[in-house]
């Protein structure tokens, strides 16, 4: 249903109907913003990237093929733009060790703190693994959708997701966010 609505909105946008494109922006700015935010780790940059993503989507709208879902196509642009942004910043290999392990969440850790701690742990993964986690876990996309967005075979995506989870688990344990049989919060 949403897919056919999107296709119609795309068709109208191609004719120059900006209101139609505005509906697509309303519908997808939040997931695109969150994908960018969890990939680049900074809200201001994520907002800039979201703007670039929608601008590029609008400019390339005629190349969009309805064989794919519109949001998958949009995510693909978002992931590529985020990766390009990180490359430009030369932060791909940068590791943020600013959060000491003793800041681990105990029973009383607030949801904001959980968010900050886990978000920071996510930034320690290389972008290759981070994007898989963002798409499969945070955006809850299917293997098929994530494979298309990342341009990877499904088998590679699955093995990468498995490795990403293991690496993240190690980071969470090292930071004391995850330990024993108890999680934060």
């Amino acid at each position, binding site marked *: 249903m949403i897919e056919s609505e999107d296709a119609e909105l795309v068709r109208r946008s191609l004719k120059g109907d900006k209101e139609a494109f505005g509906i697509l922006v309303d519908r997808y700015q939040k997931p695109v913003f969150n994908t960018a935010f969890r990939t680049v780790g900074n809200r201001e940059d994520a*907002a800039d990237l*979201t703007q670039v993503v929608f*601008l590029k989507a*609008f400019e390339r709208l005629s190349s969009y093929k309805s064989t794919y879902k519109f949001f998958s196509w949009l995510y693909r642009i978002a992931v590529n733009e985020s990766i390009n942004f990180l490359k430009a910043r030369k932060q791909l290999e940068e590791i943020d060790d600013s959060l000491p392990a003793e800041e681990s969440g105990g029973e009383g850790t607030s949801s904001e703190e959980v968010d900050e701690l886990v978000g920071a742990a996510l930034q320690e993964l290389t972008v290759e693994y981070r994007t898989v986690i963002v798409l499969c*876990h945070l955006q809850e996309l299917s293997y098929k959708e994530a494979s298309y967005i990342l*341009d*990877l075979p499904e088998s590679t995506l699955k*093995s990468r997701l498995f490795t990403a989870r293991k690496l993240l688990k190690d980071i*969470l344990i090292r930071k004391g966010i*995850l330990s024993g049989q108890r999680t934060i919060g």
Partner: protein
Amino acid sequence: MNRSLNGLLTPLEQEELNEYFASHADVRREYDDLARTAGVLGRLRNVDPPSYLKTSIMNSLPSVPSRSTVASPLTILKEVIMTISDVFTGKRKPVVIGTVVVVVVAIIYFAIGYPPPGAEDLQGTIGGAQKATKYRSAQVNKKDVIVKNAALQKALQNDKFQKLIKSTEFQNKLQNEAVWSALASEALREALASDALRDALKFAEVREALGNSELREAMKFAEVREALAGDALQAALKSGDLQAALNSADLQAALNNAELRESLKFADLREALKNADLREALKHSELREALKFAEVREALQNSSLREALKSADLREALANSELRDALANAELRDALSIAELRDALSSAELREALASADLREALASAELREALKNGELQSAMQIQE
């Protein structure tokens, strides 16, 4: 475990996994940790974008999507080519087409801009109209269609290239951004000039193996590339000892200590680790990680890949990070399975022609592809004045 963590197992499969866990406490612990990791991730909130964002986006948009409403000069040029092609194939009569062409060329004349560009500005276009007056003749002949891009023009006279551009598979792949970017990159074209690499890429197993990110990452180390070509690793992989040892903490320690190597419980691995090259390679965590994947182990035992890796040229080509990164893309790997493309990549001249953006643009046209099949347009495009 992956599928279970994603909730994709059937009740029966989950039951089987639970039974397995009952007798493998260490695997159960690992699974529990991963499940808790997933749980923690599930608690990450989706944050709201700033309130000004939509307005900023909408204000940044051009008035219309750029390519949707006005045909580009190149599109119009393609129309001219098609029109001429129709004359050759007898679908239209030259006397009628003459008028159409004059109108179209007039549009091009103004679409490109006034005053008209110099001859050098037309370089790189397929079917570039030389002069508007040239098309006023009712009698259209092959000399009316000229390829100005020198490399492309030369390539069009080459049998290998003609075969390639007629390949529907290639025509489709060329429209993929990753494939196009690879062919447009001089560094990548140079890497693909390696005969050994192109020979290796004709095997599906090799392409599949190179699709594994961990293996590609490991290949950045010369020691790893050497070890992958060596018999010691093959022996270890064949016995299965290496696979078992990869999860053992003893392996890493044994790589630096002869006594510990002797104490390893895996006989075949003890034997294989006598090879210094293999020991050096296994010191790289990237290789150890890659070898944990069944598909990598299987691919490395594939005779095609083994043979290919024995070539120093191939190993050198794989040292190129740009190539390894590009090979992460399945579409590019698929494209390299096209024999005509590999053939064309063997020639420096054809590689240069493949980098022409105009070729890609032209081959995006269904009509042009159709015309290529009948050979008329193809021969017309070869003419140079």
